[in-house]
């Protein structure tokens, strides 16, 4: 066991291997599946925490699979951004696991559809665990082809999950989702081919040091970016997202909205601001920023127009993804240090808040049997915790202080104004106001108590349905108050960032 000391980089593979094994077992076995899933989620969180400790004590690490150094072998690596994404996934993943348990248990209670729901639960767990493994693999991997494989793993698992509800609408949406993902993957792969043709290496670190003056590399980056944008659903490539996210089962919506889109975005961001940073031009950044701005406004306006809660939340995802891209043109100013913190913060706050929102939507759906926004009255009396979770998550989505969303927005605004690009700031402000409109449109319905409504009408739902949402919402809220910790992790091993954040840290 000498090989597994705390200093060993081999810890890195645990977040990938563990959910893989758990996924295999949950497919193989008939009983105790939830125990396996819960163990995997907990162990994953533990492993990621260990990795964080490792990072903070020893700095970024690399783990060569099979002991083969690049360019021959595949390398996994940890650094600040990767670990924050892993932490986000682990925490959200644990909450999702618990919520899904509560969700399926509640639905199986319905005798008419029990077998259908059992079937869904039976396949939900292996798909979810393998998806988790894929995500962790994506965040850790440092090999461009391996990244393609993890993307495929995620895409297949996500598409299967999206179709799980069995409704025609969800299957159609899932089919589209799969095709779009496939198109994205193939375009990405074509980019990889161009890259390999030009450089003959696959490792990101080695690619970073390759001279960037070849046209093949630019073409490769363009192709890979288009593929990833398709998967990240940046306007105008977002058409597939709302139906897929809104028609899926509630736990699946959470996974898709909070985690899956973040995976491809994270990869895109890494490629742009780390590996191929030399290739990035200001016009390209401005194009991304413009698309992001359009996404913010368009998504928010669409969200305001929806009549169903889940569709509204799905369009809100489209809008919130725009914030991630609007950070792009601000990167040039501070030599791309600030942009990391904006994006990571935004991603984490959004993951927590959006999961909480979809959980609320799922619980409300279970409770009322529908999610039509106009008829959501009376929820406050029966599901106070759920309503509270919705409110707090909404605060984070709106970017009100002291939520994590606020910190991200603050960073966005201040770098926009510091670089005299005030129009981005304007878009951010308008976006938050629109977010306010759609969040409170639902909130006000929650507060209405219809005539003759008795609060003792129904049994309180299981705590597994309500508490994960509240905890996640709280995390998204307190992310702002404890903002220095993520920034500290982010800056570890990154001298440029460390310099920026040297002031005001604990």
């Amino acid at each position: 066991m000498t090989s597994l000391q705390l200093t060993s980089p081999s810890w890195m593979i645990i977040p990938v291997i563990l959910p893989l094994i758990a996924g295999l077992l949950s497919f193989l076995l008939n009983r105790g599946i939830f125990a396996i899933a819960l163990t995997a989620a907990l162990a994953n969180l533990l492993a990621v925490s260990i990795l964080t400790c490792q990072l903070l004590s020893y700095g970024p690490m690399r783990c060569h699979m099979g002991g083969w150094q690049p360019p021959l072998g595949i390398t996994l690596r940890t650094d600040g951004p990767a670990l924050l994404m892993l932490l986000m996934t682990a925490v959200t993943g644990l909450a999702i696991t618990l919520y899904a348990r509560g969700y399926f248990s509640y639905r199986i209670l319905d005798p008419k559809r029990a077998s259908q729901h059992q079937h869904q639960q039976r396949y939900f767990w292996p798909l979810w665990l393998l998806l988790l493994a894929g995500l962790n693999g994506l965040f850790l991997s440092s090999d461009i082809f391996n990244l393609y494989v993890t993307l495929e793993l995620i895409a297949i698992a996500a598409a299967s999950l999206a179709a799980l509800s069995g409704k025609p609408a969800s299957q159609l949406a899932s089919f589209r989702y799969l095709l779009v993902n496939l198109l994205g993957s193939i375009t990405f792969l074509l980019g990889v081919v161009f890259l390999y043709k030009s450089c003959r290496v696959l490792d990101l670190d080695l690619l970073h040091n390759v001279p960037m003056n070849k046209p093949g590399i630019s073409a490769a980056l363009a192709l890979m970016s288009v593929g990833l944008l398709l998967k990240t659903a940046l306007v105008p490539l977002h058409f597939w997202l709302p139906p897929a996210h809104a028609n899926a089962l509630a736990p699946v919506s959470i996974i898709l909205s909070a985690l899956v889109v973040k995976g491809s975005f994270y990869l895109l961001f890494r490629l742009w601001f780390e590996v191929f940073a030399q290739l990035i031009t200001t016009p390209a950044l401005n194009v991304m920023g413009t698309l992001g701005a359009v996404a913010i406004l368009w998504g928010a306006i669409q969200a305001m127009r929806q009549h169903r809660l889940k569709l509204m939340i799905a369009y809100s995802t489209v809008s919130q993804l725009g914030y991630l891209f609007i950070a792009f043109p601000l990167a040039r100013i501070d030599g791309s240090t600030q942009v990391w913190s904006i994006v990571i913060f935004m991603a984490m706050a959004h993951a927590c808040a959006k999961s909480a929102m979809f959980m609320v939507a799922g619980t409300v759906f279970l409770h009322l049997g529908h999610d039509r926004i106009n008829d959501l009255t009376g929820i406050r009396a029966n599901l106070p915790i759920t309503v509270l979770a919705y409110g707090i998550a909404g605060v984070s989505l709106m970017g009100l202080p002291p939520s994590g969303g606020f910190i991200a927005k603050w960073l966005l605004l201040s770098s926009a104004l510091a670089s005299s690009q005030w129009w981005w700031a304007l878009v951010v402000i308008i976006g938050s106001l629109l977010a306010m409109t759609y969040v409170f449109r639902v909130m006000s319905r929650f507060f209405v108590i219809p005539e003759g409504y008795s609060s003792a009408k129904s049994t309180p739902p299981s705590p597994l349905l309500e508490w994960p949402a509240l905890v996640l919402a709280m995390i998204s809220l307190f992310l702002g108050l404890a903002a220095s910790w993520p920034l500290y992790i982010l800056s570890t091993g990154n001298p440029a960032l460390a310099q920026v954040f040297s002031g005001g840290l604990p």
Partner: protein
Amino acid sequence: MNWGQWLLVSILLSSFIPGIIIFGVPEEKHRLRTGLNLCGSILKIVLILAMDTGIYFGHNFEIRLPLIPGVELLLNGDPLSALFATLSSVLWLLTTIYAVGYLEGSPNRSHFFGYFSLCVTVTIGIALAGNLITFLLFYEMLTLTTYPLIIHRGTEKSLHAGRNYLIYAFSGGAVFLFAVVALQTIIGPTDFATTGFPSSFIDTHATVLAVIFVLLIIGVGVKAALVPLHGWLPQAMVAPAPVSALLHAVAVVKAGAFGIIRIVLDVYGAQNLLLLGVLPLLGGIASITILYGSIRALQQDDLKRRLAFSTISQVSYIALGISLVDQPLAVIGGLVHLVHQGLMKITLFFCAGNLAETLGIHRISEMDGVARRMPFTMAAFSIGALGMIGIPPTVGFVSKWYLGLGGLAAGNWWVVLILAVSSLLNACYFLPILTRSWFGKQQGPWPEELYVGRFETRLMLLTPPLVTAFIVIAAGAVANAQISPLAWVRFIVRKYGL
């Protein structure tokens, strides 16, 4: 953490913790809830008085929580925050008592009192905020916590009012956020200081700073109900009376006015603003608001709406006084009106609520002879109304006296003119109410007589207005004493070295 920091934290927690507990209290346990509320508010008053004493003797209360570089939360007890905090906490106690009586037997009280407590926590947070970011934090939270109170009745009308309130308040908040960020990128951290930021920035960024000042004033002006940003306030009248009292006297409108004071005195500083030359703008808008509010109030028959427009008018006295920042007397008049207006307006709203709850009277045309049925309530109302007009020895006279003196000292005769016209208008819309109620003849039965008992109405509804009415006279009569709002305001103005 030293004792001063603990004190600051416990001032906030003294209403926050009861609020959180109250959310979980079952609906029918009203004794527990009332007990929690009263304990919390009395404890808060005691703590704030302790802080006031400390501040008077020069102790520095400060607590910092850095979030990211350039963004930190800062709570800071200075004389100005003590003024607002004391006012809010005292009025909160009275409003709580009133609300307990007012909402007896109505549904969803746990929610109501929960949000009520949170709302006061946030207001005290605004009072204690030591930089613009903290101010912004609590300012936005105030919107969030008052929203459920405004839509408490859950009717379509209240939802509509609530939506408009949100749109106004969050738009203001967004403008404010933009301005804060812009200001920070120029001058760095925006901690409140008695002199404002260094005047060297004026040389380099004069135009931008002037624009930012306007944006900041727009941001807080929404809550302070400056014309044309006042639209939400009359609509918010659909809320229950204690909420109106909260909006008009304790928290929301006051937070806006307080924000104007902070921005003028602490963020920009008197000297910088005089250099920038943007103050006449503020004074002009304040004057317009004063006149506009009074004229609109004249047209209203609904009692609460008339009071709402009266608030719009009266709160701008504060802005008017502050806009004459080079005249200490005017500043004193403005600052002291923060307290005085709160006392008078809360009295009026309590009384209006009493009329509505006891006799179902909502309109002025229904008030003939009501003073014979409810003499104490109408006596309190009359004191409040006379104070609004500015009759000595009420507190209203003190405010207007100082404002007028300040205006004269600055050679701004128009200030005196505005005051005179406004007082005349005040008289025009309050005196008819008084004559109707005291000397009018009752026209048929009351619209809806809800309470018949030993007193004219429930004791918990009657006591708070009497207490505030008493303070309105007492604080005016002893304005020159050692302990009075005026004395404290003088202390503040001395600190600013005006």
